[in-house]
């Protein structure tokens, strides 16, 4: 028994050494400047002066990075799943499984040439992710291509935080089993409640705190303005909103992200209390509740508009079929012209703040007269996503 304890103790002492910081000579987990100089000389000696190979080029670069950005110490970050990861080197070869995280990395100015593998949905979005058309395709979280991932020799992999938990947990476990050196990070990057926190954490991982603060400032200026103006409004004065999915009479209730965005925009989803996050609803219930505002989602199953920009005329067709529904001519929303279509490209994902500002504008036209969601959209694309060439028409995302 005692021997076992001693063995365990010995192993515990040895373990930190295996996660040692390159360049740390005295084992104090810090690379001081004198240690750094010594490490540089050791490396140069091994590389150019015929000495023994002491440090590899990657190790000395890691040591330099740590000295420069983290006072020579390893730094730790907690991701959305609550897991804490200790980092001793920068991210050089990154595989990202969710497009929302890629978007966020772009927003904080991460060097996208370091992203060596993307998921298949990102590969397909050639308009929005032009720089990744030739990047390796690693499948999706529901069917990941492990061979492709491992062949890319990544040092970091990004997965969803809370969505598709079992699939992502499976990927995380499999990767850890084959190569524990790969650091796995779990971030959703599309949930309004956690997005800003995630941006900060990702900035900590990639040391882009400055750019992240600029982006956070932009995002909070939009969402903050909306919440400030809608905060004090009591439930009874909020506009009743009927939100319809791609399918007729399929709506959203609590538990759905779209319901959350309606609430953030200051509206009241009339089917908020129903069970199931996207239930099919009795058409009579819509007529009886006489909503003030009707919003229909376009995109995915209603394949038009969005960044692909195809068949924008379909917006009008769907709109007309909505207003032509039997008995809907009595609805106040129809009479007041408060029926809108919005594309899921800007209401879901990392761009939800753009869609939410449209929703706020439609809920309270007078309060948000100065809010210009299209300008916010373009600023996001040009300034933060660095897609200067992409200037989509507003008509591709909302109607009327």
């Amino acid at each position, binding site marked *: 028994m005692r021997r076992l304890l001693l063995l365990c103790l010995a192993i515990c002492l040895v373990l930190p050494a295996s996660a040692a910081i390159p360049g740390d000579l005295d084992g104090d987990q810090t690379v001081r400047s004198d240690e750094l100089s010594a490490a540089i000389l050791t490396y140069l000696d091994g590389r150019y002066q015929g000495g023994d190979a002491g440090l590899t080029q990657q190790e000395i670069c890691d040591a330099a990075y740590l000295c420069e950005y983290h006072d020579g110490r390893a730094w730790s970050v907690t991701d959305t799943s609550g897991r804490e990861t200790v980092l001793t080197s920068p991210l050089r070869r990154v595989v990202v499984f969710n497009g929302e995280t890629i978007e966020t990395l772009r927003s904080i100015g991460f060097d996208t040439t370091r992203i060596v593998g993307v998921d298949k949905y990102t590969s397909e979005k050639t308009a929005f992710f032009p720089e990744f058309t030739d990047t390796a395709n690693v499948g999706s979280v*529901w069917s990941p291509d492990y061979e492709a991932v491992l062949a890319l020799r990544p040092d970091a992999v990004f997965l969803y935080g809370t969505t598709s938990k079992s699939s992502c947990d499976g990927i995380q476990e499999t990767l850890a089993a084959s190569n524990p050196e790969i650091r796995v990070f779990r971030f959703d990057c599309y949930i309004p409640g956690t997005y800003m926190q995630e941006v900060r954490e990702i900035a900590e991982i990639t040391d882009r705190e400055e750019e992240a603060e600029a982006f956070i400032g932009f995002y909070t200026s939009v969402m903050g303005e909306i919440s400030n103006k809608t905060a004090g409004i009591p439930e009874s004065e909020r506009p009743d909103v009927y939100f319809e999915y791609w399918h007729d009479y399929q709506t959203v209730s609590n538990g759905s992200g779209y319901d959350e965005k309606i609430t953030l925009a200051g509206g009241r989803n009339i089917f908020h209390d*129903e069970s199931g996050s996207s239930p099919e609803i009795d058409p*009579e219930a819509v007529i009886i509740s006489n909503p003030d505002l009707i919003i229909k989602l376009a995109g995915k199953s209603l394949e038009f508009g969005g960044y692909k920009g195809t068949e924008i005329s379909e917006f009008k067709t769907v709109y007309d079929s909505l207003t032509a529904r039997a008995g809907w001519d009595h609805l106040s929303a129809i009479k007041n012209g408060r029926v809108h279509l919005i594309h899921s490209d800007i209401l879901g994902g990392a761009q939800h703040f753009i869609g939410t500002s449209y929703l706020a504008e439609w809920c309270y036209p007078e309060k948000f007269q100065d809010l210009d969601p299209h300008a916010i959209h373009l600023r996001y694309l040009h300034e933060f996503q660095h897609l200067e060439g992409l200037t989509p028409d507003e008509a591709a995302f909302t109607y009327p």
Partner: protein
Amino acid sequence: MDTGELRQRYAGIRRRRILFLLSLVGILILLTGISVTLGSAGLSVGESYLAIIAGIFPGTFEVSDLAETIVWDYRLHRVVFAVLAGFGLAAAGTVMQGILRNPLASPFTLGIASAASCGAAIAIVLGAGFAGGEYLVVGNAFLFALLAACVIYGMSRYHGMSSETMILAGIALMYLFSAVTSLLQYFGTANQVQEVVFWMFGSMGRSSWLKVAIVGTVLAIAVPYLMLRAWDLNALAEGDEVAASLGIPVERSMAIFMLIASLVTAVVICFCGTIGFIGLVAPHITRMITGGDHRILLPASGLVGAVLLLGADSLARTVLAPTVIPVGIMTAFIGVPFFIYLFMRRGSSRW
């Protein structure tokens, strides 16, 4: 036992069957009357009926616009469609069980429902189909269902039209189409998969007066024909040799019956998705009460199917109102316990 007693007993049986049929009609009318008043619009019972009458005879009663719209544009066609669909599926199931002499025969076992699902999946995932716009899924489902029927017919003709060949061909097709559907779901996005699954659950919500008219027309042609040939069905149910010896053209009859059943099933399923159990369970329930004579069995099981489907749909609409549960789930929850009850209660007689 002398002739008089036999005659009495037979008359008694006939009376019981007719009573059953009439009570079924009564139940159906009652259920229809109740279903029409169910809904989230909060209309009173009187209002609903007045709206119906006002729609048929305009000007007779003062009814609010809202009530009339609700009843005529949302409720009534759904109720009528449920009745017609239930009738059609049950009748098709009865015919199939009759000609295949197999208690498990139903539109599902012959692969027709699976083919319709496959067609719908192709329309949803690949966007490819024969009709455009909103009839993309419907057109695909219908044509694929008929395709399955034709394949079974073709295979049976090649191997000789017997119940065994049809069932084997049907099972094979069922697995094939299910595999294709699964493959499409595998390659589809999460949304498309959800859509396919929702379609396969079945829903009465997609009904409209046009669809009611289409299904009604098909039934109006098919059911009288089946009633006329009900005696042939009885003979076929006894066996191929027996039927042949009674002068029935076995192969031709089987082909015609199968095609009619497939057509009815296809036209119902393509509009409302694959609704299981009606075609399987309704004939069995009826048979336990009325016996195997198709002259009674056919209309009775049709009515039982209509009652089942209408009851299931009404429950699906009201249990979690205003959320609507897919009707296919409800039919299983209603039909199966009832079926088990009857099954336990019956004697050791043959199915």
